[in-house]
């Protein structure tokens, strides 16, 4: 055994030995030439989305309701800032955390001065971030088919901002709404071209658990509330 890679050769050797005899293919599916089914087919089988933007938005809105995500359509960045201000008043927020980005910088300067802001970009104190009342991030994409928000570690405030504070606010633009996961992955692939961020996460609703008697409770560890502010 090698201290670095362990029993690499032994494991690979056993795998190769085991695979000498072929296993029958039990469920012949539609296949592309000589490989597994192409991802383009998934769309025909998964829940339908609709091709027009308003159909996508309608499905995303419906799923957000079932998931208990709070979707608000905002006319402009000022309206988004007003929505955050209202939430802050409602829940009596003192400090919110956010990251730098063109979109959020526009928002930041419209927030009330009474609200403390913690910017995570230059690193942060874990306890300080944990004590924040909310975290605001932008996102990569929204997925209509599943009602998900896709965030990545390089684009949307790192790994933790979107999951540690008890309220997660996502600011997004309508053009970021893709129809399904296949499209989401294709879009990530063309944006990052092989140098992906270290984390890609599809967030689908606020944090939840059903571990106690299968009864739904929100805010198990991550955010109890997920607000999505959607700009044109």
């Amino acid at each position, binding site marked *: 055994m090698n201290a670095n890679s362990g029993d690499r050769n032994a494991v690979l050797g056993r795998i190769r030995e085991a695979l000498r005899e072929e*296993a029958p293919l039990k469920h012949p599916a539609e296949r592309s030439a000589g490989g597994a089914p192409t991802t383009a087919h998934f769309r025909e089988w998964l829940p339908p989305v609709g091709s027009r933007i308003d159909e996508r938005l309608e499905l995303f809105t419906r799923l957000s309701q079932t998931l208990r995500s709070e979707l608000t359509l905002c006319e402009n960045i000022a309206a988004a800032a007003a929505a955050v201000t209202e939430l802050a008043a409602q829940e009596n927020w003192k400090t919110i955390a956010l990251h730098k980005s063109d979109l959020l910088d526009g928002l930041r300067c419209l927030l009330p001065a009474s609200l403390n802001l913690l910017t995570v970009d230059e690193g942060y104190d874990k306890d300080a971030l944990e004590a924040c009342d909310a975290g605001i991030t932008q996102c990569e994409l929204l997925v209509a088919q599943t009602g998900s928000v896709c965030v990545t570690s390089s684009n949307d405030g790192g790994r933790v901002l979107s999951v*540690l504070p008890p309220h997660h606010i996502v600011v997004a633009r309508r053009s970021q709404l893709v129809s399904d996961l296949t499209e989401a992955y294709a879009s990530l692939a063309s944006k990052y071209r092989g140098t992906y961020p270290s984390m890609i996460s599809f967030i689908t609703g606020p944090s939840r658990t059903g*571990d106690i008697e299968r009864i739904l409770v929100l805010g198990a560890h991550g955010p109890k509330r997920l607000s999505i502010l959607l700009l044109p």
Partner: protein
Amino acid sequence: MTTLAEPPRHQFQLDANRTAADGDRRAAVRKALHNYSSARDKTGATFNDWKSARNAASAIKHEAVNHLDRYLEEFESKFTARGGKVFWASDSKQARDYIIDLAKRKSVRAIVKSKAMTGEEIHLNQALLEEGFGVVESDLGEYIQQLKGEAPYHFVFPCMHLRRDEISDLFHKELGTAKTDSPEELTMIARRVLRRAYIDADMGISGGNFIVAETGMISITENEGNARLTVGLPKIHVALIGIEKVVPRLADLALFLPMLATAGTGQHMTGYNSMYGGPRQPGELDGPEEFHVILLDNHRTRLLADPEQRDALHCIRCGACLNVCPIFKNIGGHAYGTTYQGPIGSVITPHFRGLEDWKHLSGASSLCGACTETCPVGIDIHHHLLHNRRNAAAQKPAKGEQLLWKAFAFLMQRPALYRLASRFAPLGSLLHPLVSGSPLDPVRSWTSTREFPHAPMRSFRDQFREHQAAKKGVASSGTQQGAKR
């Protein structure tokens, strides 16, 4: 729960008898599973074509598992190129030693863990504890089971068998919190305790639902956000994953994530589905400095070497086959005494831990096929239970049973002898009550749990002959009644 010394077969019988008689517990489990099946049916119905999706998922896993060496090497080279470390473990000891050694070298003080059945499989927590490393389970269900000192009941719903008052009592006893009958308050108690654990930990241990070869990533599916925190805050991330978890391409997850959610919990998509490809990258503001992936064999290659049952490695551990299994519903998860319960556990455990000791699980099935029907990757689960039975019989034939079958065959091939025997059957029936249930009873293993059928005074042959004779009589007397039938 497994106690020492008892062979697994006896333990299974004892536990199964006990839990099958526990009506309250069974009712709780049934209720939980009922909610599951209605959610699942509703979500499943939104698919355009579940069957084709399932065939495709099966074909993709077939491709991955049958070229496992190639895909694992591809994963390794992509993952290490981004600063990750891959460790190949032949067995549980190698995996445990690696983690313990790493924890020592990096002077780790506290460890937080998100749900990983592989961790259960290699008894990781106990090993870490023995070396002086405290580990906190962060998934709510796993946390409850850890406090209770009990193995998970179900590999997706670890504490589905517990009622809220039992959990409240447990928290009261272990954490000193006030009693409550609100699942929400109970969840918040755990939330408060565990938040500290994420922040204090310097090592986070996770499992993984998929290994993506193409991009060198692992994908973790969860609802609570505990895994996100476990691999986001500590400075070292260790993921312990079975070698079979591979999918070839990142975009394959577009199919697998919704299918896993639908089959697993009846959701369209689980709360958090996160793909991790390496430790913190240049320009990123947080994330672990080190990311180790342990690829665990631990006898999976034995199952791989059996082409007939190789597709059992396609399993994505959604738990659906447990949820629909009439045996699981009645005997519960602990009776199995395995890391992986239910039908799929009964299929794979004999390969992982020895056929002789674990063959009895393959008998614990009504062969109704509900598991095969529900499996999102189309594994032929109930036929594999039959294959295990066949292999067990071939490996260690039961001499008495073989003799019995020989005698039976001998009898069946000799009509005269059979007729004679069937004449005596009613006599046996008559005498049986005298010894029934006693050590002298020749069919005691049957009568201890069931009624032995009575042999009627008139055999079927007799009745048939009489019926034919009567019919002939009627037909020859000229009416059409008999002929119509």
